[in-house]
């Protein structure tokens, strides 16, 4: 974008030209399957979720109660030295009302995703989850209290989705 340069290179193509195969292209879908190790801390976290409980790790140096749990405190750079249960209620730290699915397709009914600061964990500690049972999404505000809605015990598999969603605690 210097005035000294007159021509900027690049041959533009319209998306539909590519989609309709009007120019030659090569297509490839790599097969990439993964088995991600849950790790020490999250393995226990998932086990506890199956039991309907949320567990955190604690660091005695800085006093934080951390969820999701981890085996090292990244601030003190030392191993965490304890476990503690936190509640399945919390407060909405921030949220978004998404009309986009994970693959960018449009949704008629939005997904409400939020970071929830769980009661019992240190300030600011949050987990990501959905908020449901909200007839009008404009109702949701930062600071509202929420509670987890769990799957029945026999349907739980040891996954973050053992919590189906969080619902607003209306007074």
């Amino acid at each position: 974008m210097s005035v000294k340069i007159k021509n900027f290179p690049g041959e533009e193509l319209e998306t539909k030209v590519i989609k309709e195969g009007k120019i030659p292209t090569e297509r490839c879908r790599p097969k990439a399957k993964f088995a991600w190790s849950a790790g020490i801390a999250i393995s226990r976290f998932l086990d506890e979720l199956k039991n309907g409980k949320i567990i955190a790790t604690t660091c005695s140096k800085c006093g934080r109660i951390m969820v999701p749990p981890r085996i090292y405190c990244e601030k003190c750079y030392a191993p965490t030295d304890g476990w503690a249960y936190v509640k399945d209620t919390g407060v909405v730290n921030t949220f978004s009302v998404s009309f986009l699915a994970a693959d960018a397709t449009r949704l008629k009914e939005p997904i409400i995703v939020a970071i929830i600061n769980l009661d019992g964990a240190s300030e600011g500690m949050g987990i990501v989850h959905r908020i449901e049972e909200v007839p009008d999404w404009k109702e949701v505000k930062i600071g509202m209290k929420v509670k987890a809605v769990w799957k029945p015990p026999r349907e739980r598999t040891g996954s973050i989705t053992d919590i189906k969603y969080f619902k607003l605690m209306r007074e």
Partner: protein
Amino acid sequence: MFGKKRVAIVGAGITLFRRNLKETGKELSYHASKMALDAAGLELRDIKSVVMGSAPDAFDGVHMKGEYLADGAGAYHKPYTRVFVGGGTGVFTPLAGWWHVASGQFDTCLVVCEEKMSSCYPHPQFAFTTIFDPILERPVGMNLVWIFALEMNRYMHRHNIKKEDIALVSVKNKRNALDNPIAQLAARITVEDVLNSEIMAWPVQRLDISPTSDGAAAVVLASEDVAKEVTDNPVWIDGVGWCIDSTQWTDRDLYYPDYVECAARMAYKMAGIKNPPKEIDLAEPYDPFDYKELHHMEGLLLCKKGEAPKLTKEGVTQRDGDLPTCPSGGLLGCGNPIAAAGLMKVSEIFWQLRGEAGKRQIRGDPRTGVAQAWGDLMQYGAVIVLRR
């Protein structure tokens, strides 16, 4: 002085930024690199080292993308490094180039940034979702736009900012881009247009976001002795800073980017800047979303926390204001080929300080500019201070 040698930018090159370009990544890298070399009056054999910056391999769909792009970036049989810090790459790459020259090891370094996002089908956004934790976050159905939306909401809430104020940034940058020959999305829009655009993930609407793009940019770095031989108008890299936060983004209060402040302080210390709003003449903060320009202006210490929307409303950040911000049109106006976008901002400061920015030229005698890029899972800050 930090480093053994002072380092200057002596030439810059750039391709068009478009949703789809026919050129392969190698060809894009070539075009930008050749243009930068020609601008500097140098040949490939004068280049002693090459640094490439390019964001995830998953966009171009080529594993070890840095290696793939190497010959297009003139790195044939040369010392070559590829760096990658997500969206922060575009400013981090010249920082890595700076290490090469400031250390005294190489007299020249060609810095290239390339992105070809159109290969990822049907939309590059899909490749992004793998940044989320596979066990705790992906099963919830995470979409990339959500993290911006969560951050924007928190920022608005904390400082009581309305969407109308944020939309002004999109209006400004798209309009600035009308004077940028490489821009993808230059347009004359209004705040109403932004507020009426499709809701993607509230509070993010369509006109709040920059698009995905293909494109490449390059700059040539030279040590002080070489720079003075090659040009009368070198632009010095006087400050560099970089910083990372954790990917445990759910632990943080998202209203303020601490890691940007951390990188900015490092760069300002090196450049001897004590009062950023007074000593900096123009800024190119990273603006993939309109609220991000405000978020980053505050992280760059160009104003107090929560004050950036006020400066925008008052016209301070317009091209003829006291602190022109994103005079290039930014990512909102030019497009967002991730790594190339950040280097585009660095090149804009380079051209502005030399008086070569044509219709985009800011008035007065700008001497000091700052460019910043932000990346990964909302965790990386890279800051560069350029001076004439």
